[in-house]
């Protein structure tokens, strides 16, 4: 985690801002070009796409529901009926893995019967982007005592170890998907804010910002229309890495018994439960979700890294 945090601020340092890079609309083709010119990014993309497709198609590519218990065959290895084996309650591991990916990437279960599109990790990162970008823009654009107050408060938050902060938040407000989103948002905000602030400090000295100020545009307009779109390249790359950390965090919380409540197919809690049976010769229930978390996080990191490399090369 420590290492991860150090790289968080890297995109800002290494990537001077360029309004054309990773821009949408006419820039989209350009972005795809960058993406496919990096082998790292392509490898990452495939890993991520695999899980995204699995998550989207989960109901069509699994034979069982993730909670269906076959109590006569618990802790089985891979077989024709169960391609990845079964867990301690005889539930199909492939189904649980696929539906687990859904929670991470595709749906946010608000209650048992109500969900909204967009995975738990994605919503968490989106929320931290929203708050963090707002705070960073204000801080960087106004400077002075506003900057001091916001940054010192965020520094205070950053001084608490990330895992501890997650534990405190989730233990305080209870374990549910929505609360995990809150936790990811709160923990992610300081990092995003610092990144956006540093970008803002740079961009606000540019001529087009001066021009807008001379035109008499409002500060809000300048922050959100002039500065933010020009900072989006590094922010997007940072966000991609952040989704990886969020998945990691979900896994950790689940592993510690603070993730989504059972019997939901939360990858972290699947590892925690499966762990009990490793010593007795059934490693499957712990192995697959561990691999799933690892491959998805690695995929996102490769993707972000590849993109960043290509971007810096084009400078």
């Amino acid at each position: 985690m420590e290492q991860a945090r150090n790289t968080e601020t890297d995109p800002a340092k290494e990537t001077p801002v360029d309004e054309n890079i990773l821009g949408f609309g006419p820039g989209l083709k350009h972005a795809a070009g960058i993406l496919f010119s990096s082998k790292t990014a392509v490898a990452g993309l495939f890993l991520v796409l695999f899980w995204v497709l699995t998550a989207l198609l989960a109901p069509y590519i699994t034979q069982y529901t993730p909670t269906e218990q076959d109590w006569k065959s618990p802790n089985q290895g891979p077989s024709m009926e169960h391609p990845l084996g079964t867990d301690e309650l005889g539930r199909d591991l492939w189904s649980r893995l696929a539906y687990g990916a859904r929670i991470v990437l595709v749906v946010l279960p608000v209650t048992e019967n109500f969900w909204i599109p967009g995975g738990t990790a994605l919503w968490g990162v989106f929320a931290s982007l929203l708050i963090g970008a707002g705070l960073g823009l204000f801080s960087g654009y106004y400077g002075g005592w506003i900057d001091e107050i916001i940054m010192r408060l965020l520094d205070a938050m950053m001084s608490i170890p990330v895992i501890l902060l997650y534990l405190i938040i989730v233990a305080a407000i209870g374990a549910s998907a929505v609360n995990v989103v809150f936790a990811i948002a709160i923990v992610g905000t300081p990092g995003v804010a610092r990144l956006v602030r540093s970008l803002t400090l740079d961009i606000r000295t540019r001529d087009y910002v001066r021009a807008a100020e001379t035109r008499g545009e409002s500060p809000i307009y300048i922050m959100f229309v002039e500065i933010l779109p020009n900072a989006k390249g590094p922010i997007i790359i940072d966000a991609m890495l952040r989704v990886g950390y969020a998945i990691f965090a979900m896994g950790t919380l689940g592993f510690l018994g603070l993730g989504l409540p059972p019997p939901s197919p939360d990858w972290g809690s699947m590892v925690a439960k499966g762990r009990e049976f490793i010593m007795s010769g059934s490693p499957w229930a712990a192995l697959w979700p561990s691999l799933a978390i690892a491959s998805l996080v690695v995929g996102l990191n490769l993707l972000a890294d590849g993109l960043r490399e290509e971007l810096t090369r084009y400078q």
Partner: protein
Amino acid sequence: MKKDDFKVHPAVLDLKSDMEKGKVTRREFIRYSSLLGLSAAAAASMAGFPWSGAAWSASVKRGGKLKIAAPVHKVTHPAQFSWIAPSNQLRQIAEYLTYTDGDNVTHPYLLENWTASDDLKTWTLNLRKGVKFNNGDSFTADDVVFTMNQWLDESVGSSMLGMIGDYIDQTGIEKVSDHQVKLHLKRAEIGIPEHLFHYPALVLNHRTFEGDFIKAPHGTGPYLLESYREGEQCVIKRRKDYWKTGADGKNLPYLDETVFIDMGTEMAPMIAAIQSGDIDIIDFSDISATEAYQALKDDKNVNVSPSTTNQTRVLRMRVDLKPWTDNRVRTALKLCQHREKILALAYFGQGVQGQDVHVSPKHPEYCPIDTPKYNPEKAKQLLKEAGYPNGVNVDLAVGSGWKEIVRYAEILKEDAAPAGFKINIKTMPNSQYWEKWTEVALGITTWAHRPIGTMVLNLGYTADEDGKPAAWNETRWVDKEFSELLSRANGTLDIDKRRKIFCKLEKIQQDRGSIGNAFWINVWTITRKRVQGVKAHPSLYLKLDDAWVNA
């Protein structure tokens, strides 16, 4: 003591005739009559069993060292123990007045014997003579009175107070002579000998004990405390003048040394250590052994001996909160337990099925009762009658550290869905569950082993004098007929009559009670094959005075 001082309690003779008529089994006869002060050997001979106390061969080996993985907690006052593990270390240095063995039979230990008055309100404890503390002091009645006063002293805060405090206070303890103590109770109580073996009940030296046992480790037990380092290890060494003799005619213990090593709470390193022979025993008294059982049950170098216990996991419903106020809803949820499946998956089939009654088949007064079948259709019907035709949404609180409880909850959620229960499992750390175990509407609570059926029913399903539910009555269920029958059972010695009352008690609890319980669990004493003489115990108490190692 002269022979004729010893009076056989009249109930023993009743028991004997019951046994002869086949109303009580021999084992129950031994159990009950030993509670009433007959020595186990005498009881066994009355029951027609040869008593094989220390009869096993003189092939024991002396010397050697035993290594045990066990948490080494911070301890000061033994009466304040709230974990069994520290008692397993210090019970090798200090001892108890009685000893309840793995079959729930209670023997005198530091007592020579005991007698109870006919009304069970006056108990005479005769102390063993010639026992010395390891600092040379003689063990006398003063030590017993001092220790009991510590239990009953509110400023000590011993859990013994909750156990014995409602039938005795400090004025009720009378020193008759140097080797005799009389207890004058406020009400009849049959469980005293077993209460004297409760794990915080170590006998202290009244001359030297000043609140911290580690500073003055003076007990009557077989070992001396060599060193005690919290979180690291506890080393104990053989004592030369211990009062018990072994099978070879010399003083116990056989072992020279025993080391308790704190290996934390992770199971994998402990399993690996016992497999490789780095440790000989794992102390599972305060942690779940299911993972180790799974990993070690087929290991050729390890003995895994199970004990059936009266420990259970109770699905408890608070009868003062909706929807559990309605017995039909409670019955419906109970019917949703697929017991065979729950026992097989949640506890690997290692136990016996429960019957929604907090009396275990291993309790002496247990009256056989039908095991309800899984019946979601009937449950659905009952829910409909209770006014929930579209089902009902309920939250189920569980501590995520108890793996078998989480599995129990997950299976129940799945199997109760067809009946219309939508169960939301609310997991929390175990410590958080203990903060609100009596408060949640629906939860699964773990209940410890208790040797007598009345003990747990009195704790969990009664009200105090003002009609308020007792402190541990987590479901607030108070039933007039049940309470009356239970207080009759408390004062009934005759096992046959007692069981008749229990038949009614169990029926009431099954029909309109507040709990479901799907299984009673086994526990395991796990030792290397070379370890001899460590017997399985349902509370996983470790008795090491006559343990020895085969090279």
